[in-house]
């Protein structure tokens, strides 16, 4: 199927301001990241805090300016667009944020929260409200809630409002940035299910960002694993989860507590140490300081993106091929 959205070599670093606003250094938040989202598919992005997954989402949305790279929506680079053309594309890509307590306006009623973006786009008030009501119904909020204010809603209900607001502009792509992380398990399952139903109903393509590996597996067709601003492994979800290749992906999976009593995963040697400072990332492979399989080669050049199987790549020297032979595996 065709790619609806593509990122090509996206990089972003933030300056660190010191005394009197002098730049002390830079934090490389996203470095040389490429991805593709197939039409009506779900791309899961997974990684620990500080890996750049949320920054990437904001770069795609143009909420922050990209340093380098391209974001192609249906073949057109949206990073150069301005004016009404940009407005049109923005409607096609919508976002749902993590915290439903700060992402919806407490001073607007539920229906107006959803209708707001339509008004901003010049839709008459009553028509916008009608449409808002339709989407509130689609996300499973009863009609009686429409005139209430966010303060009377629970976290799960607020997240439904945030989803309705994202859908009301009839986007083709929805980016969910940790959209279920703040919710309790029993409510989280409801919202995950809702995402899947809505995806079918409105033919959406999803980018689903989460630190929860099981949630990402459940939702995604393709998965991208990030570490310290770089993609370490990506490919079909089934492949990544059944046959992870990059030592970081493997370590990450070994760190999830298993749900089986007496089958402790903790003894499968979770990785040692902590995330190095992104102000001064390690040379070569950024994971090498914590990698159990580190070699001398890792500190030198950037690890190559090795194709493990069609569509499944891992950025690790362990799988580098000389000719047609694997060096190591």
């Amino acid at each position, binding site marked *: 199927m065709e790619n609806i959205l593509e990122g090509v070599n996206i990089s972003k670093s933030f300056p660190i301001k010191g005394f009197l606003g002098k730049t002390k250094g830079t934090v490389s938040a996203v470095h040389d990241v490429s991805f593709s989202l197939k039409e009506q598919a779900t791309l899961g992005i997974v990684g620990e805090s500080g890996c750049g997954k949320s920054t990437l989402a904001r770069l795609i949305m143009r909420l922050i300016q990209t340093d380098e790279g391209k974001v192609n929506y249906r073949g057109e680079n949206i990073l150069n667009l301005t004016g009404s053309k940009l407005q049109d594309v923005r409607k096609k890509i919508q976002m749902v944020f993590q915290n439903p307590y700060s992402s919806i306006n407490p001073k607007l009623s539920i229906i107006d929260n959803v209708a707001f973006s339509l008004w901003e786009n010049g839709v008459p008030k009553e028509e916008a409200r009608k449409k808002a009501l339709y989407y509130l119904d689609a996300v499973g909020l009863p009609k009686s809630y429409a005139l209430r204010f966010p303060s009377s809603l629970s976290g799960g209900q607020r997240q439904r409002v945030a989803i309705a607001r994202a859908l009301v502009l009839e986007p083709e792509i929805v980016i969910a940035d940790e959209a279920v992380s703040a919710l309790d398990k029993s409510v989280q*399952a409801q919202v995950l*299910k809702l995402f899947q139903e809505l995806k079918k109903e409105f033919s959406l393509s999803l980018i689903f960002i989460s630190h929860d590996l099981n949630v990402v597996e459940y939702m995604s067709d393709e998965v991208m694993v990030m570490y310290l601003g770089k993609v370490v492994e990506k490919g079909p979800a089934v492949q990544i989860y059944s046959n992870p290749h990059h030592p970081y992906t493997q370590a990450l999976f070994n760190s*999830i507590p298993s749900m089986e*009593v*007496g089958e*402790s995963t*903790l003894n499968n040697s979770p990785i040692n140490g902590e995330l190095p400072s992104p102000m001064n990332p390690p040379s070569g492979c950024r994971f090498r300081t914590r990698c159990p399989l580190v070699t001398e080669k890792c500190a030198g050049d950037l690890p190559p993106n090795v194709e493990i199987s069609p569509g499944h790549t891992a950025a690790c020297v362990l799988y580098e091929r000389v000719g047609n032979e694997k060096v190591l595996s």
Partner: protein
Amino acid sequence: MSNVLELIDLVTQFSTKKGMVPAVRGVNLSVKRGKTLVILGESGSGKSVTLRSILRITPPGAKILGSILFNEEEILTKSNNEIQALRGNRIAMIFQDSLSAFDPLYKVGKQIEETIISHQKVTRKQAKELVIDLFRKVGIPSPEERVKVYPHEMSGGMRQRAVISMALACKPEVLLADEPTTALDVTIQAQILKLFKQIQTEFGMSIVLVTHDIGVAAEMADDIAVMYAGKIVEYGEAKQILFSPEHPYTKGLIAATPKKGQKGELITIPGQPPLITNMPKGCAFADRCSDAISSCHSENPELKEVKPKQHAACFLVRQKKEMITI
């Protein structure tokens, strides 16, 4: 096996504008010596309040009723000074947010020294050495340097290790941990959980761990108590609760959590937990329960043994069992 800690009919009420509101509504629990009890529940279920009630760390105006036995001695009737002597000394507590556990204006090492000096007869010099020892035990690299840093200079995982070292300072008999790994990344969480197991073997203490994460519970627990709306709905050995849950809420919670390799539909629990200011009559879960019968809405089910050592508070489970025995 003797119980080091026992809660009997614990009720904790908060004073609000609308009068006294019960956050914990009659909890019975026992903590076995050297074992880990996990209290599992969602936000607002009263699991943290239960834990805080033990050391009387409750907001002003709160009322704690019932009975709390520590080594078979009632501590609920003790004076605040007597409780203060227990806190951090024989019963220690760890919170979710390690940044707020320390005073930002003092060096980390200094603050842990204070804990030791206030409970033990040691000189400052000895206390300093003890802190370095403790840092080494909880796996903080170059402890001699690390005792001299301020809390904000440590990473989240390192700070949680420092908090654990502070809790261990007086070799407590019971360690209360309130969501100790929730704010941490999974790789760091795995390190900290491993550390908990290590120190439990070494110090032989009992741990009461509060969490919302079934995975963490499975990893750590000997016994599990599942809380919902201020009450324990199911209680038993970890294996029983996770493999053969009886209460509809426990079943729903486990089914609603995506597992490794999960495909197909997630089973969801409809609705949301009731507010503590507006508790329904009868079973608090009845409105979300697909099998609820009329008595569920009018009467409160008690926690009763449904299988050997496994207790559930549900009319349906008992009814099913009676039908089988008939």
